[in-house]
């Protein structure tokens, strides 16, 4: 699914990277915990989040994510947008809640981008 389709589906505003909307999104994850994004996602995915700090951009950079979509109408500050721009990570913002935004994308065929292996947090539990 192209990022441009996601933008239309979620009625999202493009905060930066309008020139990169033709990027193909292979999967997505919704998380406010960057630790979980770093631990559980595959590369080339879209991140839906309600967090707007610089660590979100850093996490996307380290995890090779394709784009970030802020939910609940959240918008990061200008320094965060500027950093995303230099890293060529498009930023979008939708007024929809996390659950609804994820649900709409999933319903339209966009799969999750979690790692296939068993989450290691479960392995340590009895």
């Amino acid at each position, binding site marked *: 699914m192209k990022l441009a389709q996601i933008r239309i589906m979620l009625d999202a505003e493009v905060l930066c990277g309008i020139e990169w909307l033709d990027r193909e999104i292979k999967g997505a994850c919704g998380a406010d*915990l960057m*630790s979980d994004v770093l*631990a559980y996602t595959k590369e080339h995915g879209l991140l839906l989040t309600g*967090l707007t700090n610089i660590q979100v951009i850093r996490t996307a950079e380290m995890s090779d994510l394709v784009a970030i979509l802020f939910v609940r109408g959240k918008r990061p500050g200008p320094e965060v947008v500027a950093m995303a721009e230099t890293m060529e990570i498009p930023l979008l913002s939708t007024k929809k809640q996390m659950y609804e935004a994820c649900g709409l994308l999933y319903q339209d065929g966009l799969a999750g981008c979690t790692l296939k292996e068993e989450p290691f*947090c479960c392995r340590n539990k009895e």
Partner: protein
Amino acid sequence: MPEQGIELEFVLEAADFDSAGEASSKIKRTLQQLGVRPDVIRRIAISAYEAEMNVIIHACRGVIRAEIYSDRTELVVDDEGPGISDVKLAMQAGYSTAPDHIREMGFGAGMGLPNMVRCTDKFDIKSEKNVGTKLSMIIYH
């Protein structure tokens, strides 16, 4: 790539959240310029970033050093700080001592150390209470 390797070193300061990730970002870019495989770079970058965040969250100051050879990258993260009183417990996924303001930033979920173990080929941790913690990691290219 030179046989003796390329060495990158960065100083990390406690609570410097605006700069958090800069060292890992520079390490990542260097690896990209050297033509290391993207999936390998991703594992190195994630390990470096998790370690960098740990120093900034928990320690007083620290140093992150990357030595890049043709067949491997070695990461050493050495900090001065409170140390870890129970390393075995800290290695368990989900265990964290991070305060609420760190969790609000999206970190401190207790996934950092287990994630580093998973992303690296060799992982060693040495910690002394009230002195500091040293992580040594190797990722083969």
